[in-house]
């Protein structure tokens, strides 16, 4: 079997969907964040597949940017999770109901 760009895209969209379902269904802030990371990496696969398909180097360059931003995002996100854990001793988002209406 020859692996084409479409196989990669199917893989990418599958991973992206799994990540999105994880964000919607899981209640632990850390797991939600991991699911978002999964979505970002699914996007990276799509970028690399398209870069190869179009023979354009830009796609590979964008992946580096995405990785760097994801690292920064992880730093900020984990900081926020830690500060909320200090106040509440929980990281479950369904227990955060101070703000509603």
């Amino acid at each position: 079997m020859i692996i084409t760009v479409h196989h990669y895209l199917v893989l990418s969209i599958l991973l992206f969907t799994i990540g999105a379902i994880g964000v919607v269904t899981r209640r632990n802030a850390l797991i939600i964040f991991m699911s978002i990371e999964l979505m970002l990496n699914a996007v990276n696969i799509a970028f690399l597949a398209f870069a190869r398909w179009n023979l354009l180097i830009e796609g590979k360059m964008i992946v580096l940017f995405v990785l760097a931003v994801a690292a920064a995002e992880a730093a900020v996100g984990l900081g926020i999770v830690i500060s909320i854990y200090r106040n509440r001793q929980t990281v479950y988002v369904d227990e955060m109901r101070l703000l509603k209406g």
Partner: protein
Amino acid sequence: MMPQFTQIDWSSLFNMGLPWIVIFAAAAIAFLTAALVEEENSLFTPVMTLVAIAVAFALSWGRWLSPLPGLSFGMLVFDKLSVFVWLMILFSAAISVLLSIPYLAARGFVKPEYYGLLLLSTLGMACLVSAGDLLMVYLGIETMSLAVYVLAGFLRYRAASNEAALKYFLIGAFASAFLLMGIAFVFGSAGSTNLAVLAERSTEIMAGEGRSFYLFGVAMLLIGFGFKIAAVPFHAWAPDVYDGAPTPVTVFMATAVKAAAFVAFLRLGVSVFSAGGEVWITVLSVGAVATMLLGNLAAIVQENIKRMLAYSSIAHAGYILVAFPSIVSDPQGAGRAVLFYLFAYILMTAGAFAVVVVMGLGKDEPTGISRLAGLGKRRPVLAATLTLFLLSLLGIPPTVGFFAKYYLFLTAVKSGYIWLVVIAVINSAISAYYYLRPIVVMYFKIPSPLVGEGQGEGETHALSPFIVAVLAITALGVAYFGIFPSNLLAIVTGSF
């Protein structure tokens, strides 16, 4: 294809980027101050921040006035539009700084890094509004948002602030994943992420075999932007985050962040929507109607003025979206109407939130609407300014809010979306209920001390000069551009 290296005129890039460098330097100084100096209740950092913003503002204003044509560096575009919006962003950043000084002082939580984060976020917005490439849009949005996530949770001892930060962060990161997926598929089908190239090739791609990828990509981009501008059905985070975040940060999110995201959306729309217009027209009009209706209906039942203003900001995003379908047939008219509206919206929202800052200067941030009872007697001037802002948000002439809505709806009518405008006008009528209610409470309701009405703790203090400055500037702006809207129209026409 061989990689092509374009020659970049470094000296003019430096010239154009000079205001950004000033802002970045100020941010660096703020962080260094935080690390090196034991600074308690000092005015050094906020004043330095304000000076940097003023210098950047003056430099950019000179650029806006100069008759030279805009410059494009591929990824960054410095035209009148980006310079004008950057000026608006600097203005609302300055307002947030002014409001932050008394707000943080009242809580004994004065930290220099607060202002550094604010400046870094402003820098991200600069990239966002000048973006000529989808990659730059992504980087701008991320730089802007990462700083604002932290700012939303800045009062780290307050559980509501933590919660707002976490919700904002998770939803924001979720949204940028969609945005990126959109960029990937647009890149795959068009072979480029440059907005100018996309504008040229759109029609060709839509006719070719890349059509389905391209449609999917743009749809994902729409979802990503929908989250950022809080359009229905991607709005759910906005009221919670606006409510929980420190009020000066809420001002920043409601004005600068929204304006930057909308202008980037506008740029994207101008280059992408013209091909295959019907699809996007349907999506955008449905989105506009849903956003207006939900924002206005949900605002009616709010008891907390901060949440009410959050839903009102969703409704206003809906009004702005009314002009977006017109991009296809009349990009210039739609762009101008959106810019006019954003300018007016920044003035009146910042003013209204400034009054909320005054109300919430106490420890537990009492921002219930019933707290306003009797304000008309105790603080006549403050009550009058809040009335002016609320009437402007409602769109009563002669305030700037009326003309902003007028130009927006006029553009939509000219392009033939009369049904959309009818719905928008009905929505404006609905919004009268919740904008007039605080006014009625302020002037006609007698405060009953038993339930703590009319005892906003902050009201007992003398107004801080910084808050007075914000109220004066925004109230003057709302009144001046309400009486002479043609002046603002001339500025906007020169920008797009």
